[in-house]
């Protein structure tokens, strides 16, 4: 790969997605982009760079972007955030939203859907307790490929074994050869759409809970800050934000502060949720 092509690929993906690829990533770029070049009948990476520079082929740009994303995800990733959702966040929402009985949850950067579907299964497990309530779960990602897979809800044996309790597999999946298909009743609880986190949140509406996990790590400080500030605007004043295990708001934005006693969850600074005394959290089983 020519150095100027390498630099061009890095710049293009940075502008398009925020993904920062350092000089040590030339191997990654080669191994991910060579199949894209082949699929589009381009002779190699220099031909790919030329075609991208001409900027005429939307499909090519899309495939280029998809190929450079890291899409790893699993059901109930890290366990704890989902326990907290069930035991802390959900009980609070059932109190604070008792009049409207409407809750909107956003899995921003949802990848192949495991995060959104884990939440859907948790809600399903609540059974009659949520009768009369409307829970809307929206999953978004920049990558077409992962959204198509999320929508299909079909997972490999390997994917259903990382994090998914066996009882849930039995209850909510149908076996189809060596694949596992998630039940329609769970798939119906989630809507997937394409959304680039670098864009304005217009059209998405206001959310009560935002999961933005394991994606900010790929961005530079400024991009992280800008994304978090837009999320802050799209979050209800007493809403909750989840970040991934290696992510934080500290030093990135002042809009959010950690929810005391609940690692990984953030509330808007000086908001009601942040001000909840820990005793309340204990009372609901934290």
């Amino acid at each position, binding site marked *: 790969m020519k150095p100027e092509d390498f630099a061009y690929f890095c710049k293009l993906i940075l502008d398009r997605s925020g993904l920062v690829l350092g000089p040590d990533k030339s191997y990654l770029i080669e191994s991910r982009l060579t199949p894209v070049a082949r699929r589009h009948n381009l002779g190699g990476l220099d031909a790919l760079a030329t075609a991208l520079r001409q900027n005429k082929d939307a499909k090519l740009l899309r495939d280029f972007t998809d190929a450079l994303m890291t899409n790893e995800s*699993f059901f*109930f990733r890290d*366990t704890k955030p989902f326990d907290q959702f069930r035991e802390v966040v959900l009980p609070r929402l059932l109190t604070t939203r008792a009049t409207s009985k409407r809750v909107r949850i956003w899995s921003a950067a949802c990848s192949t859907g495991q995060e959104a579907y884990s939440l859907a299964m948790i809600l399903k497990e609540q059974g009659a307790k949520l009768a009369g309530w409307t829970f809307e779960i929206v999953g978004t990602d920049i990558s077409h490929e992962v959204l198509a897979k999320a929508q299909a809800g079909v997972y490999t*044996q*390997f994917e259903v*074994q*990382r*994090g998914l*309790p*066996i*009882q849930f*597999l*039995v209850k909510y999946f149908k*076996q189809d050869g*060596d694949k596992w298909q998630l039940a329609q009743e769970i798939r119906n609880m989630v809507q997937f759409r394409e959304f680039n986190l670098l864009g304005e949140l217009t059209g998405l509406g206001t959310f009560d809970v935002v999961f933005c996990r394991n994606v900010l790590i790929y961005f530079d400080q400024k991009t992280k800050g800008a994304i978090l500030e837009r999320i802050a605007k799209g979050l209800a004043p007493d809403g909750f934000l989840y970040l991934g295990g290696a992510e934080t708001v500290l030093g990135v934005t002042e809009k959010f502060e950690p929810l005391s006693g609940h690692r990984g969850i953030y509330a808007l600074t000086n908001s009601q949720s942040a001000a909840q005394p820990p005793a309340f959290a204990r009372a609901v089983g934290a």
Partner: protein
Amino acid sequence: MKSCLIVDDSKVIRMVARRILEGLQFEIMEAADGKIALETCLKTMPDAILLDWNMPVMNGIDFLRALRGLDGGAAPRVVFCTTENDLAHIQEAISAGANEYIMKPFDSDIIEAKFSQIGLI
């Protein structure tokens, strides 16, 4: 240190599983079939059991039913680990008292995820 009994008729699988579980700080015991496993449990009840299904002498599901009938046999957390990967087998295992179920092939991530899900790590 928690103990784990690995029950599998394949020496290679026992070795691979042992290596992974030792890495997760388990003290390991091994058995090549359900009968030997049952005898081991009668002597020392382990905290966890990683259990194959198809084995000579006594298979995994018969072992599990016998174990759950023993004094103190409700305590160990049992994780099936088998090539049987259809819903019917999984359901049968759960109703016989299995806590988790791994479909082979497995790797260290899967073992770790499953063991932590049922509170073993």
